[in-house]
């Protein structure tokens, strides 16, 4: 029961929908909750979590609507193009988000740190040497060990690169109309992602318990955890997207010609992959 576009309108415009405004309200709840939570107000966490759950419910219904529109053949080829454009620009915005954090790492390491260690700053920080991986000049941060590329990050690199390959195999299978093969390799991709996240979690525990490397470990800890943390979060998002796509494959959605949901999720996965390669080099090796 796959989409046939023959009777699709020129450009399908959905009718009124309750989801957008409900999503807005859920986010309002989420943010009110978050503001209260970070300030240790007792009800903050509940409101925040309720908001997030509502958002997820709304999104589930919203995407459900979109999927059934797609499956009932309302989406013309032109809409497919729209999805392509929008996904590309969305990924571009994500690139810029990561750019802010990579930029912060670059700036703190290559501009601020030499400054803090230069001759003028001896006035304030007489003993600061300016080696990367320091805990800042004030000595208020407990000593810690930095995180090297072996073994977990390297294993993780291998995992993500492999997952890129499995995803491509799955895509080729979909284009060849081999549904079983598609589902299998897609599942493999998701599994690789899950293992990646597992390793990442293990790495964090290792950092906190054995290396004494924490989010509060000066600028090193800040950039390390925020960069890898946001990346891990994006891997999770990507895995959820692929999960939804896998579910749809199992339900018999998609044709060899029309399967943008698959492709969009795949683009996203590759983007997350590339960000990891950047992290692997900049955070772990340099």
């Amino acid at each position, binding site marked *: 029961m796959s989409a046939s576009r023959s009777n699709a309108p020129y450009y399908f415009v959905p009718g009124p929908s309750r989801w957008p405004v409900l999503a807005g309200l859920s986010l309002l709840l989420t943010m009110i909750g978050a503001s209260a939570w970070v300030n240790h107000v007792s009800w903050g966490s509940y409101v925040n979590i309720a908001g997030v759950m509502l958002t997820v419910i709304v999104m589930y219904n919203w995407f459900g609507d979109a999927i059934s529109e797609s499956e009932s053949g309302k989406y013309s080829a032109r809409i497919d193009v729209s999805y392509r454009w929008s996904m590309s620009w969305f990924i571009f915005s994500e690139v810029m988000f990561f750019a802010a954090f990579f930029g912060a790492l670059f700036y703190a390491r290559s501009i601020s740190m030499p*400054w*803090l260690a230069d001759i*003028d*700053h001896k*006035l*304030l920080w007489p003993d600061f040497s300016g080696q990367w991986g320091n805990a800042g*000049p*004030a000595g208020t941060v407990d000593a810690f060990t930095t995180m090297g590329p072996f073994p977990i990050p390297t294993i993780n690199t291998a995992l993500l690169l492999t997952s890129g390959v499995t995803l491509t195999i799955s895509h080729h299978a979909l284009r060849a109309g081999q549904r079983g093969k598609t589902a299998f390799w897609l599942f493999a991709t998701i599994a690789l992602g899950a293992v990646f996240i597992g390793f990442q979690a293990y790495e964090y525990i290792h950092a906190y318990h054995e290396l004494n490397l924490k989010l509060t470990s000066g600028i090193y800890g800040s950039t390390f955890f925020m960069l890898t943390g946001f990346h891990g979060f994006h891997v999770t998002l990507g895995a959820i997207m692929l999960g939804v796509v896998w579910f749809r494959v199992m339900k018999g959605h998609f044709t060899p010609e029309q399967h943008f949901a698959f492709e969009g999720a795949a683009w996203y996965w590759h983007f997350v992959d590339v960000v990891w390669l950047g992290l692997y080099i900049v955070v772990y090796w340099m």
Partner: protein
Amino acid sequence: MLGAAVLATSLPALATGDSQGGPAIRQLNLQAPVTKIAEDIYSLHNLMLGICLTIFVIVFGVMFYSIIAHRKSVGHKAATFHESTSVEIAWTVVPFIIVILMALPATKTVVAMKDTSSPDLTIKVTGMQWKWGYDYLKGEGEGISFLSTLATPRTQIGAPGVLPTEARTDNYLLEVDNPVVVPVNKKVRLITTANDVIHSWTIPAFGVKQDAIPGYVRDTWFKAEKTGVYRGQCVELCGKEHAFMPIVVNVVTEEEYKNWVATKKKEMAAKADDPAKVWTLDELKQRGEKVYAANCVACHQATGKGIPGAFPALEGSAVVTGPKAAQIGILLNGKNAMPAWKSTLSDTEIAAVITYTRNSWSNKAAENLVQPAEVLAARK
């Protein structure tokens, strides 16, 4: 609310004269320069203004001519042209050249402003909420160090609903208790830094403005060519008293500077408190009241009642009436909006002000006396 504003207008002696070394009444242009850099800036600005005005007059001359001549009501028929490559290239290239011509003299000044090498005198400037600290690091006067706070009394400023009770002077908000003193015609290098948030140090007449960044140092320089008093104000938003931390520099002859250094040094020696000295309750309270007035009233208010929602009351506060160690800790290290005082106040001053708060208003703390030695011990 507006009523108060209108009332304030009717207060006598509001209209003042020009501020010496500060702005003049209804001044239209930059302040009179007293350094070479400020002069450069002054003429750069004139140059820019001249070029911009010329372009402005030409462009809008053409536009208004067209508006008058090519209107429908005078029967003008519309032409149909809509491009001309040569004209378009011309008005891309010509502005480009103009911009380069503007940038050339500016470049020279930028380089000169950045040249802080071989100074005669080096002063470290520390921005704090909400005062300036000065340390003479190198050159004649080395070792001098003092704080500089607003000298204009609150009674001239007033508050919402409270009219000022004292007439304003010419240097309203532009006067400090301890001005910076520097010799004329000497290159002074300033090293700026800050304790809490970013502040910015400026004297418009010198053409100097440099942010003071916590944890970092930056430098700038000036060489004043005329004696006199010069005034500026903190120019980076730094919290509620941002408007109340002015800067005053006293440029004096070499002779006068020598004298000033001598007296200042004597004064400092006399003022230095021995933290081992044991004080009586009354001595500490008296001293503490002064410290309080100079540092704490802005937030906690003279009544000790604070400002609800923003600054906590000291009267009846659990910290002030409870064990003294906690209060010493907060004064030394700060908490949220409360600044850390350890680098700005001496042990004696901290001990005195704590003692004062513990015995003032309705406060009757059990531990009502703090000696400087205890503060010294808590610093460790």
